[in-house]
């Protein structure tokens, strides 16, 4: 999943999608991993393997349960599935300091989370 998009390609990708005022994709069906790469590149974020794990986990959770996961669910899964034995909320905030679940949703092409849990 890790890959790069150039500035030019990134701009082309972002020009082909529509973002809402808060930066979330208006049509999640148009999401591809390259969209995430382009958004991240624009934000100056380099997506590593753990970013991708989080984005995929949140996308799968949204598909299955109709909403993004709780932080404690992500932390538990990260310990068990991603091999980060000491995962904590700090681990997640290091990945996305502006809010790990919200940012994973944004880069993952999901709607902006509504809940304030």
């Amino acid at each position, binding site marked *: 999943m890790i890959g790069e998009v150039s500035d030019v390609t990134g701009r082309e990708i972002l020009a082909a999608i529509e973002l809402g005022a808060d930066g979330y994709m208006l049509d999640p069906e148009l999401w591809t991993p390259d969209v995430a790469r382009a958004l991240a590149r624009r934000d100056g974020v380099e997506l590593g393997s753990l970013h991708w794990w989080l984005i995929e986990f949140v996308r799968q959770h949204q598909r*299955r*349960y*109709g*909403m993004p*996961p*709780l*932080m*404690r*669910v992500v932390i*538990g899964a990260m310990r068990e599935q991603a091999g980060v034995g000491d995962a904590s909320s700090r681990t997640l905030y290091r990945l996305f300091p502006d809010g790990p679940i919200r940012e994973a949703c944004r880069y993952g092409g999901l709607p902006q989370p*509504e*809940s*304030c*849990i």
Partner: protein
Amino acid sequence: MGISMLVIRHWPKRGRMGELRAGLGVSGSRLFLHGDGVVLAEPGRLPDLVGAPQLEVCAASWRRRYAGPSDPRFRSSSLTLMYQALDRADDYRIWGCGGASSWHRGDGPAPGWLLEVVTCPVDARDRTETLEFVLGAAAFGLDARVLIRGPGYNHLLTDAARGWAQLSDFDLLELICQAPDDVALKVPARRIDTAGLSVLDRDSARHLVL
């Protein structure tokens, strides 16, 4: 100073304002509005209050219903912050879609929590917010069980039931359901009968009827 908490998830059209004002006149009182209870945060809706209660409105519930700002006396808040206060409260009263419930701290350690879902609102927002209220308890790590009874079991029948499945799939909170035997629930839950219900009532003293 102890916390005296009022939580409103459903505001009846009439008859409760006197009780609310009295509750908010108590020292250390806090009011948290959630679900369609946020109607009380409409500018001009809540009269002048005696004392200085802390007034909070769930940001998500407000955003779902209103585009403009709430009464400036209200602070935008979250379910997690609400549970933080509720868990420390010396007493609380909650007005939910399924009725009112209250608790007052006595001697000895505070008992665990029982979140009771006794209705399944028609409004999709209200249904989602009932689940969010439960998930908020899980997010906060509250020592709680969830009891679904009466028409509440309808939450576990529709496509929206998948959201409730998180509780058991991730071992977040125990889900207990009293439903007719011939009803096939879409979510794993411990089935309970009337006798089991009365035992549960005795065991859990801090009830929240949502």
